[in-house]
């Protein structure tokens, strides 16, 4: 009976090859992917304000397009126009900030999940900004504006009708 030798318990060729490839892959990960992961994490925390600013900007632009693209005398003279615009702007702005902050938090938690080797979501924070929806306040302000434009159109039509009738009475149309 011979004593067991240490050499009999060394790693075999396949085991060494396996370890060698794993080490090469690990080195590759450290060189190539680790800096990217670090970059992504840095960006997720650095860009929080940018995401909120962008989303607010978009929300404000939506509000201005809806409420100020067609200024008219009636709207300017209406008692609530300024208040409507201000509340729609702040409501939409809040909507924008909310989407921006949700997007930023999602980027940040995903970065930390990846760092901890946990399953992370694939949706980016920027795509969250696309989810800005019109708020009730903006819709109501737009409805007020549409009503005022509707009155104007209605009055114009009545005016046109009266003018036509006058012309008809005066025999202008044959």
């Amino acid at each position, binding site marked *: *009976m011979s004593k*067991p030798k240490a050499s009999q318990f060394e*790693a075999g060729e396949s*085991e*060494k090859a*396996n*370890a*060698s*490839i794993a*080490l*090469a892959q*690990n*080195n590759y990960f*450290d060189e190539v992917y*680790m800096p990217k*992961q*670090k970059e992504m*994490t*840095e960006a*997720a*925390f650095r860009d929080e304000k940018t995401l*909120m600013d962008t989303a*607010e900007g978009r929300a404000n632009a939506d509000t201005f397009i809806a409420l*100020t693209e067609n*200024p008219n*005398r009636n*709207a*300017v*003279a209406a*008692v*609530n*126009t*300024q*208040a*409507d*615009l*201000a*509340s729609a*702007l*702040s*409501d939409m*702005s*809040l909507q924008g*900030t*909310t989407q921006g*902050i*949700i997007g930023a*938090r999602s980027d*940040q*938690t995903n*970065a*930390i*999940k990846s*760092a*901890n*080797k*946990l399953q992370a979501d694939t949706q980016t924070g920027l795509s969250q900004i696309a989810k800005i929806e019109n708020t009730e306040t903006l819709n109501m302000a737009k409805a007020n504006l549409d009503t005022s434009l509707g009155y104007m159109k209605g009055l114009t039509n009545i005016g046109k009708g009266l003018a036509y009738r006058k012309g008809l009475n005066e025999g202008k149309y044959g």
Partner: protein
Amino acid sequence: MAVRQAKNYTSSGSPNYDALGLPDVQDPDKVFGDILREDYADYINNFRGYENRLLGMTDDTTLIDRARRNTARQAEIAAGVQKRNLERYGGAGLSAAQIQAQKAAAQRGNALSMTNTVNNARMRQRDINQALLRDLIGIGQGINSSSLAGLATAAQGQSARDSAYKNAKSSYRSGLIGMGTSILAAFAI
């Protein structure tokens, strides 16, 4: 069908993989241990700071602060728009009393808007903070379960080694006893 590339065989008959630059590993266990420690050091150096920042955001008030600031600014912007439009339409035929009424309505609107927006911001901020807390708890659970898995692997390895050592000791002892009895038996004959 995939075609395997011809390999550059060495004199010993085995293929030559030198060009791949694979590292030479004699002790996989040591390499694995080193990588684990290095991974942990990378994590601490690169990500722990950010993780702590995220953990500190569960009482964040950014949304409320920005809502308060933005609402005041939006009121100013709306007043500017109204002022320019009034100038554009030559006062829009409004009397001084009507302009006064417009201003009063704007002031009331601004006050209501501030209250409404900040209240909404508070509720949304709470939602966002709660969602972050949920995510953080999920991350914590993940870290806890992977650390337990790591410990379980180490403990299993230790107990396997202990029993292998006991087995080896007892089989060596029984071998010695067997050999001794054989020698004694030979003398007895």
